[in-house]
């Protein structure tokens, strides 16, 4: 539908299944050690990621595809103003298709147990928006966090004068 975000949920790829199966068969035939099996699993995981993206139908020439994910991966709600674009189907990405060069999307991503994140996606070209999530307990690690001054320990005693600028005025 023109003018509206078209959503598509990425499906696990057959490519992944094939790759994983092949890896397992090869591993058993060769009698590789368990460590080798772990390597294969890691490779299979890479294949999963690649296959996931490849499986999403290519955007039309006049459209772009935006992949939205969180780090760490979490089920998160993605809103564009008053419109709910969808929920990130972890471990996959939420895919949004928009008309090419139709202006940016100001998004708010909310995941349970994390601070909401306001971010932006662009429509110049296909892109991936990987948003880092921060739990409230770690907000002091974010830029802009500031510690409030300690309450006045002297109770009713008047505060000392505000530190005066050290620079003489003309």
């Amino acid at each position: 539908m023109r003018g509206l975000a078209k959503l598509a949920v990425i499906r696990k790829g057959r490519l992944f299944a094939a790759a994983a199966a092949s890896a397992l068969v090869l591993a058993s035939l060769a009698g590789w050690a368990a460590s080798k099996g772990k390597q294969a699993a890691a490779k299979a995981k890479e294949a999963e990621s690649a296959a996931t993206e490849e499986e999403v139908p290519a955007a039309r020439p006049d459209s772009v595809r935006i992949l939205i994910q969180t780090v760490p991966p979490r089920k998160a709600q993605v809103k564009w103003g008053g419109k709910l674009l969808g929920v990130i189907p972890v471990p996959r990405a939420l895919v949004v298709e928009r008309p090419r060069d139709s202006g940016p999307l100001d998004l708010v991503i909310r995941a349970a147990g994390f601070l909401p994140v306001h971010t932006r996606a662009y429509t110049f070209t296909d892109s991936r928006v990987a948003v880092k999530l921060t739990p409230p307990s770690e907000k002091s690690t974010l830029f802009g966090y500031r510690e409030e001054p300690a309450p006045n320990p002297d109770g009713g005693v008047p505060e000392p004068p505000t530190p005066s600028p050290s620079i003489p005025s003309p």
Partner: protein
Amino acid sequence: MKSTICACAALALLGSLGCHAGPPTPPSTAPPRTLSPASPPPVPTSPPATTAPRPAATASTPSAAAPEPSRSESQAIVIHDGKEGFVDAEAAARSGYTIIDFSDDWTPFIFAAQKAPDGTVMNNRYRRVFLGLANDTLDEDGGPLPPGEKNFLELYGIPPSFGVLRERFLANEQQTCHASINLEALEEVETIAYVAPEKLKTEDGKTARLRRELEEARQKNKAASLADLAQKDPSLATKVKAYEHRTAEKAAMTEVEKRLACEGMFKKGLRHATGVYDDGMRMAVRRFQQKNMIYEANYLRSKTMDALARPPLANDHLAFMRVLRERVVAAAGVVEDGSVEGKSGAPTYTGRSGKPVALRNLVDELTQSAAEQLGLATQEGSLAFFKRHPAADFHRLRVAVRLPALPEYYAPDMDLSIVIDRGEVWYHLPWDAKGVRHAQPRKRYPSFHLYLKYNGQRILLARWRTTIGGWRAEQASDGYEYFRYKGSDIGSRVIRNVVAGPVWIAPESTPIRSLIKMKGVRGAWQRVVNYDELGPGYLSAYGLVAGYFVQAGRNGKADWDNGIRAHGSSDYLSIYSSEGYSHGCHRLPNHLAIRLYSFILRHRTMRVLGDQGMGFARQFLANDDVFEIRLPSRGYSYQLEPPLPVDVLEGEIKGTLKTPVLTYVPKPGIKYPGPPPPVRASDEGRAGAGSPAAKSDGEP
């Protein structure tokens, strides 16, 4: 107030923008087509095919010739025997005509799609937004503009397209509400004094009392009128004058309201109470000023009142001439705008003949010439032009004119340089411990000079007011805001890179409050990162185009970038205000910055680097929400080879403090958790400290 810290992309740009090695390459675009001073303009090789008149759009169309629509992109309108006809544009250009782009997809040179040496088109991603803004189809983010909305962005460097102007002309010609406006009442006053809404009742009471007092005196003195009273009792003359002035202002205010309403300047959602200079009124005045490119604060001052007292079509014609001016400037590739003229007239240079030659105001001269040739120098002429050309013509309309020959010093590669005089400089904090502001008067303001070296002379081509840095709020590492002196560096620099649609990467010292704004997003108001400030865009801290000042690296060392730029700015009032300061950069109105850099790029050897993609992302915390800045590009870059010399003069240091303060200074009235932290020991921290030139080896 815009926060235009210049520390910006210093680090980020060092690697990718600063030091592109390799042999100089010729400009990727041909120099502007202008007449050779030696050759008189011949008749076009393909004579204009004048056409049979076609019916005018309305019966009131003046007697202009009526051509058929432009036929193809290869053709341009030319005036022949007073009639419009068509000519092959390229042939006309070869014959000495200048081709002026009248199409609605015109942008200034800096936003035009350039070509790489291999012929690949290098698109500027801001071009589409620029065009959408000029055509009233997109908003500043590149999203669709609501139907009926107007952008009015001339003050911000984006003139309306001719298609938009056409609509404006035709609508105003049909508009009937203007007939009810008493223009005489508007002309009666030069300005209308601002009365704050909460003081209006008191002021009206004073006026009423004054009226009663004067009326009693008039009767007592048996005067026929108040003027008569002032003559009979001169002691009351001042009161009579004050009363008449206030009365005239009130009458004019009524007409101002009618005029603004008639032009649709009052925005929905902002209430306005009749006779009150409230927010609704202020925004309507601002919109009117933006529509008419009036550089004034949002009050009813002289230029605004002049425009309000002019008939709408007269204002439209002035707008038409401004738009034409930018098209002519772009077509001819000139920059001389008369800004160097002093009380004794234009400065002179010694020509080839050995005789003094006065520097011409080419911007005005060529614009006027084009307007006259095309029959567009009058309001009637421009209205007729728009009537005989339907909107569709402006999709690809071009015109061919014979412009006066350019001065002898014009060449594809000109020896240009920039000098910035900081004027009078104060290092003192302008506030005392209680936050009371102390005046720091300046008689000589910062100025920007563009010079040309020609035949052993230094010719000043343009001189504009600009800004230097001053005391600004900055966020320190403890999360608190302090004052910090953000000065403008002095000494020799160069501009190696010019960036069109530049992106300002807000340094961590940027106050968080300036990085967030409210925005309507698909039917809901939400807080968003303030990308207006970051760009690309006309509201960006770097404006629509920026030249990056660096100290050229030598002996294989990289350029040193202290974050100072000469750039366009939407904060035009800061440029012309007596108390306007930047964060160290040298601001110019966007339209002048566009002209300047378009001129430089077209008259110097340069290389098109194109879009400087990047994947910048940074998060920050505000009120328990995380905001993420995402910037996909630094802008569209051009590289000057060799770089353009810049010299920043120290100016005159006022007051007793002769060197800038390099530490944070607490803001009055704020409780801090401790003493100010040290300024960051980084390029970003150093930026704008007003440091002199670095050592000659290019090291800071």
